[in-house]
């Protein structure tokens, strides 16, 4: 069983001694070159007049009618140069700040925006509501392996302002950094900024230590979302970090080859980064490449597959070669398959492991997701956490030193064996045997039988939900957040914005 005790939130990255690189220098430079040629000759669609004007002002080749921006390589590189390799995504307290690119390892996200959940009490699958987000935020707050969070589900009980209710549920139930994946219009973005200012205390403090960030998906192939990009422009203006994610579906919305799909992904994400750097040089950015494939027999969408995984991990080198941090682990820390399914287990393990070994700055970690991020099941988060516990151990590598070479021990024991009785062995097991695990539970004292990890996980989640009380946010800030969201609920312009400008 994992140690269940009352404690304050903390965060813990994983640093890997083991390193993998998928692409060699020449391959990286070929993809970078191809990306720049695509940006120069084909361009990216930005369906926002505001964005197009900004690009035109700095000398990009803008076709206002086709809403397309073509970018020369030197212009792109000029703006990428101001995008920082290191910056802070802040929590409520400095010891919860994620210092992106600080070399301390990979920081993990709890991903989200699941449209459906498995009801924790009844086991029934249903649409997610705001309370599910609040509950999952408390679980994420409790687990040190999670450093940053998205609202884990969507508040279907709140309609168009669901993204803002999601932020409220996270801010009031956790002290960790919160990122929005669903604020997709300018008006909602302004409310979200107001919320972040309320949490930070002032606009100045927000700029110094942004407690909020945004993840924006580009639209494959080679386009941006109008509302999303206009929201990103607001966030960038306030110094709020903006991550750009590309989700090329190999052979559907991108070429079937990883190198071509990476080209599409880099062109989309780098063009978005350039825009935010024009608006606010130095604002934090990151890239995420989340490829998928389609089951060619049924059309079902798959996040787990060797080819998509390789493409995802190659993204780490591509981002770093452009001086930009990366959020890795495709499949958002979830899997296509259900909990308890063998394939879900192995897919999750390799996608988590490869991101860490490739040296990703951030990665999707324990999230509680399955069915391709469309179903949230709270206990599942502990299975994801379990994999990262193992990965933490594996990526420490093997220590080779006089003590571990153990010549003296070997000499002492000679040919008789029986190392189990050696004092050093006792110490070794004490530090190595996983105490913080749901897998090796020794059961109740009377039983000492293996227990199904699902039962152990359920018990742990029940305990966390009943007992973990995140450090309380001041009542006045809570009230302020409530009032902001309340105002947003009554603001009809959000509905108009979401529906587009038609």
């Amino acid at each position, binding site marked *: 069983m994992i140690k269940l005790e009352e404690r304050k939130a903390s965060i813990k990255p994983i640093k890997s001694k083991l390193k993998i690189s998928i692409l060699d220098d020449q391959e990286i430079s070929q993809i970078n070159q191809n990306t720049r040629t695509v940006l120069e000759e084909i361009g990216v669609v930005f369906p926002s007049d505001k964005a197009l004007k900004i690009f035109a002002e700095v000398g990009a080749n803008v076709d206002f009618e086709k809403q397309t921006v073509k970018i020369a390589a030197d212009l792109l590189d000029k703006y990428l140069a101001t995008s920082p390799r290191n910056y802070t995504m802040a929590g409520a307290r400095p010891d919860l700040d994620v210092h992106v690119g600080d070399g301390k390892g990979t920081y993990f996200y709890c991903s989200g925006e699941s449209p459906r959940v498995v009801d924790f009490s009844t086991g029934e699958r249903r649409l997610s509501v705001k309370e599910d987000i609040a509950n999952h935020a408390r679980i994420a707050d409790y687990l040190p392996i999670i450093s940053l969070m998205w609202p884990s589900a969507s508040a279907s009980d709140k309609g168009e302002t669901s993204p803002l209710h999601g932020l409220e549920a996270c801010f009031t139930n956790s002290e960790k950094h919160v990122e929005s994946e669903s604020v997709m219009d300018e008006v909602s973005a302004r409310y979200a900024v107001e919320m972040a200012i309320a949490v930070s205390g002032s606009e100045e403090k927000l700029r110094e230590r942004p407690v909020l960030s945004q993840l924006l998906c580009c639209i494959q192939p080679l386009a941006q*979302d109008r*509302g999303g990009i206009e929201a990103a422009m607001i966030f960038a203006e306030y110094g709020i970090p903006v991550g750009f994610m590309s989700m090329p579906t190999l052979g559907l919305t991108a070429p079937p080859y990883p190198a071509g799909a990476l080209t599409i992904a880099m062109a989309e994400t780098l063009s978005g980064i350039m825009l935010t750097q024009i608006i606010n040089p130095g604002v934090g950015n990151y890239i995420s490449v989340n490829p998928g494939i389609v*089951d060619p027999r049924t*059309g079902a969408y798959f996040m787990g597959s060797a080819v998509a995984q390789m493409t995802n991990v190659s993204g780490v080198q591509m981002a770093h070669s452009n001086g930009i941090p990366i959020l890795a682990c495709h499949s958002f820390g979830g899997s296509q398959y259900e909990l308890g399914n063998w394939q879900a287990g192995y897919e999750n393990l390799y996608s988590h492991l490869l991101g860490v070994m490739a040296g990703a700055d951030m990665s999707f970690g324990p999230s509680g997701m399955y069915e391709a991020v469309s179903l949230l099941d709270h206990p599942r988060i502990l299975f994801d956490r379990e994999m990262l516990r193992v990965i933490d151990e594996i990526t420490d590598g093997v220590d080779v030193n006089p003590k571990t070479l153990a010549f003296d021990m070997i000499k002492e024991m000679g040919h008789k064996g029986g190392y189990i009785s050696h004092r050093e062995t006792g110490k070794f097991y004490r530090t190595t045997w996983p105490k913080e695990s749901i897998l090796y539970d020794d059961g109740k004292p009377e039983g000492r039988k293996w227990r199904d990890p699902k039962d152990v996980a359920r018990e742990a989640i029940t305990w966390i939900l009943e007992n973990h009380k995140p450090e309380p946010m001041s009542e006045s800030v809570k009230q302020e957040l409530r009032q902001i969201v309340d105002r947003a609920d009554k603001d009809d312009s959000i509905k108009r914005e979401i529906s587009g400008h038609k």
Partner: protein
Amino acid sequence: MSEEMYKKLAQAVIDGEADDAEALARQALDQGLDPLACITNGLTKGIQQVGELFASGEYYLPELIISADTMKVAMDILEPALAGGQEREVVGRVVIGTVEGDLHEIGKTLVGTMLSANGFQVTDIGVDKTAAEFIEAVKENNATIVGASALLTTTMLQQKKIIEALDEAGLKNQVKVMVGGAPVTQSYADQIGADGYAEDAISAVDIAYRLADAPA
């Protein structure tokens, strides 16, 4: 001679050879063959076989889509040549799209392709489409089924707007509405007054058959 032409048209669809299909369709008209028979005994037979090959796992999705596109190329030549009053036999006429504010297109396109391969005449209006655009397409295509896809909690509400707009336009009794997408459930579909809900593309075909059989 006509039998041979039907076979060739069917084969062009099965092989996904759009250039051949186009040339054959023109040839058929030049030879004075009945366009309706060319469609029914040639193209439709071909696409039916493609559907079977896909169902048995022999064909993959790219082949299915290429064949559907091939059929459309030939259809665009043959259909305008149909004599007045002649109409090709379709199971139903579907207008499908993703709702306003939503750019997710993979599921919608897949559902549309599967419906085409199963004998429906499908007009895919694309993504980010307003209720008014759906209505316009329904009128233009004399549709019997409207398919609205939504993948976001914030945009699924647009499906309801489409149903309300159909009602306002006096079309609610002429068309059946089918909805789908990640956040949509059967109970939500019932709640907004949709006639059908499908979880995936395969069941979308079954539901569409049911809706097509149902009296309008």
